[in-house]
């Protein structure tokens, strides 16, 4: 193989890798079309255009009455090609699930559709959350289409950088959202901090290896399903660059546990703590 061809090959590989780090997700670019979610003209002959057959025009020409209803019309498990975020789920969900609580907020998940603005724990901007508070429904260049400033108050933008071997193609949520497909590099805790402020309790973005509090030998020999960590220097877990982040203990959407926490053994929070700490 000529030397120039080798160079082009590696340059291409490098570019592909960069795209994997921050190239946006489904909903972005050429995936989906506007009419998947919006109606342009609304009804003809009084026929409902909304997917719930309600003839009432919806805000923003949506096909459902609210953004949450619209998002869940694909993401409630009814569409096997879209990630299911509504409990109970039958597929892997990296962000966890929201309880099917009929609109009542719980302490197991982010409070979507609260009746009045709420102050996020640790935060300073009261908000009524919907799916589109955190995710840009039109997509953007960020991991999971996350908005760089979900508060929309002019904060310095923050993006999560993550590597994914498999990208969403509209048919493969089980592969895309499997923990083994995701390698967080940077930005997770800072992004959460846009709403929740800087953590004042457990440290984040600190290496497990060499920590006076954590025990790398414990982490490197975990037998339970590993909690997520950031791995900025390589894609290998466990390895000495592994760092704890918010998602090491909490599910982004929610879980079956209080505060959306992860129970590594499915039973108690202690099992999660014990993946890093030898107490």
């Amino acid at each position, binding site marked *: 193989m000529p030397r120039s061809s080798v160079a082009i090959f590696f340059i291409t590989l490098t570019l592909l890798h960069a795209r994997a780090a921050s190239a*946006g997700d489904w*909903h*972005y*670019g*050429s995936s989906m*079309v*506007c*009419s998947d979610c919006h*109606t*342009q*003209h*609304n*009804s*003809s*002959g*009084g026929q409902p255009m909304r997917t719930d057959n309600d003839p009432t*025009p919806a*805000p*923003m*020409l949506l096909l459902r009455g609210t953004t949450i209803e619209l998002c869940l019309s694909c993401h409630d498990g009814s569409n096997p090609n879209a990630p299911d975020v509504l409990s109970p789920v039958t597929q892997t969900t990296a962000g966890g699930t929201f309880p099917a609580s009929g609109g009542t907020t719980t302490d197991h998940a982010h409070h979507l559709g609260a009746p009045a603005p709420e102050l996020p724990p640790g935060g300073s901007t009261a908000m009524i959350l919907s799916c589109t508070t955190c995710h*840009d429904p*039109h*997509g*953007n*260049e960020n991991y999971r289409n996350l908005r760089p400033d979900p508060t929309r108050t002019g904060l310095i933008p923050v993006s999560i950088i993550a590597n994914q071997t498999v990208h969403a193609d509209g048919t493969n949520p089980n592969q895309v959202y499997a923990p083994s497909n995701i390698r967080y590099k940077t930005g997770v805790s800072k992004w959460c901090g846009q709403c929740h402020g800087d953590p004042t309790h457990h440290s984040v973005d600190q290496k497990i290896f060499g920590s006076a509090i954590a025990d790398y030998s414990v982490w490197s020999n975990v037998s339970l399903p590993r909690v997520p960590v950031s791995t900025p220097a390589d894609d290998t877990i466990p390895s000495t660059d592994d760092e704890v982040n918010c998602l090491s203990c909490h599910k982004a959407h929610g879980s079956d546990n209080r505060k959306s926490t992860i129970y590594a053994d499915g039973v108690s929070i202690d099992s999660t703590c014990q993946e890093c700490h030898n107490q």
Partner: protein
Amino acid sequence: MRKLTVILTALLAIAALPLLAQTASNYHYQENMNCSDCHSMHASAHNNLTDGSAITTPNTTITSPNRTINPYYPAPNPGPGRSYLLKNDDVCETCHKDQNFAPDVYGDNVNAYVRSAGGVREDATGGGHRIGSTVRPPGYDGTNIGNYFSTGELECVSCHSPHGSANFRNLVPYAMRLAITSAQVGNVSPSMAKAAAFDGTKDVTILGGNTYTFGSGNMQNYYGRGSVVYSRLADGSEVNFNGSKSSNRMDQFCGVCHGEFHGGDKTAADRVSNGNGASSAFVRHPTGLVKIGSFTVNSGFTVASNLKVYQAGATATAATDSPGCLTCHKAHGNNNPFALIFPSPTAADTTEEGGGTYKTLCKSCHPMGGDLAAGHW
């Protein structure tokens, strides 16, 4: 001396008549064409009205006030009994289908230019107005049209007057006029200027149309996309019809048949929203009223001429211009669904379908979902 003045004045007036007519009218109107171009008066023996041979050469020279060359074209009538003594069952096709002496408005263009209106459809190919269709128009609200003209089918004359009018492209709410009051007719009849420069007082300006000579000019200069500029009538000068308010009568004209795709809840002040004027309250995509500049325009869209917006001035400007029906749709049709235009954001389109995608149409004005400049079509 006085007699001489009168004679001179009369001569000047006569000399000016063709110019005035040319300025104000379209082809088919006033001095253009003869009745016998389309109608047979006697349905004569063998229907060969001259020497018995078929007439196959069209008029190519237009003289005023009357044409003199082959007045019996398009063709001899092969038999009597046609509606309205027409010389052909589909008499419009005779000149307007696959011909190069008159605008080809059926299907793809046999003449090499991008038509402003595209071509009507006759079969299941592509999207747009389908000649012969008996299906109710999308958005038909059941109140403004009883049926199509004559046969209950969509015909050319459903929209265009074959006898001409002063309106843009001879558009008249022809088939529907019984249901439209005389007071309403003016609000659904697009006015036209044929001028060297944009005329914002008219609904449409045909740029250079004032010097265009029918039958001898390049059709692109009159019927081409680049020759047509739609105006956004000034704030306060909007027109109302059927509870809808629009800044260009083209939209009102479309709304005669597509009423439920047009306007809002009919009672809100702006006639397009649910009442509070917020963008989130639109009942349907606004046409001809809301300024595009109300929202952020996608910076990646760089070829303004690929889409026709309703302009407040001579140059398309997002801050002051509005979208209209014809911003997104070809009036006749094209090979895209619903006759939509998929504009290329980066290059001048050489087809009536456009060189972009469905998303480039929406994203021309709406920046969500990635920058067109980054290739997110």
